[in-house]
């Protein structure tokens, strides 16, 4: 899973975009939320 982060500096107008892989902990949180959503929609 890819995670995209952006910083926008209001002084310089510069945008910095970083893409990285999710950590195992972040991926687990995502899967947990996805499972909760799926369960809720079937109720």
């Amino acid at each position: 899973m890819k995670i995209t982060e952006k910083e926008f500096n209001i002084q310089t107008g510069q945008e910095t975009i970083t893409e990285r892989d999710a950590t195992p902990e972040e991926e687990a949180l995502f899967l947990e939320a996805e499972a909760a959503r799926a369960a809720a929609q079937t109720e």
Partner: protein
Amino acid sequence: MGLTTIPVPAPPSPTKSFSLLNAGGTSIAGLSTLTISGISNMDDIYILVNSLQSTPTGNALGLRINADTTNKYGFAGMASYYQPAQNDNSGIPSLRNQAPNSISYIEVGGANYFTYTTWTSSIRISGGATSGVKMVQVIGGTNQYRGTAITGMGQYTGTSTISSITLFSLITDNYASGTVYVYGAN
């Protein structure tokens, strides 16, 4: 004997004049984390998170100040989320009581569980240009699943003046759409 001149600090401006710091707003589409940096000498900061939408997985939104991930935050208020077991689209309000210096971010919006829910939050931070406690007021809600909302006051006890604001997905998923407007006044 000579006179001693005691410097007197300039009094604060009797009126505040807000201006939009990020012209046109900044899109959060495709992002998990958005940081607005370069903020300077803004004592009063107002953030509008407009029409935030998740990707298919619901995606709550957190706030950090100066990218500080330590437990310098607290929040007291009410949050309600759609309860699937109720099956009637009604949110159940519940107390949110997070003591000062007990959490590492303040939740400011976003809805868990549901697809493509549109969420809007208003966040006001006072005391940003001082070394004192920053007070964070949050009001937010969604267009679907009535009763899903968050409201209350939080605080951040970091002593640096505010130079950046970070909004981030609590489950590190990228948002589908949304625009963030940051206003400031000194």
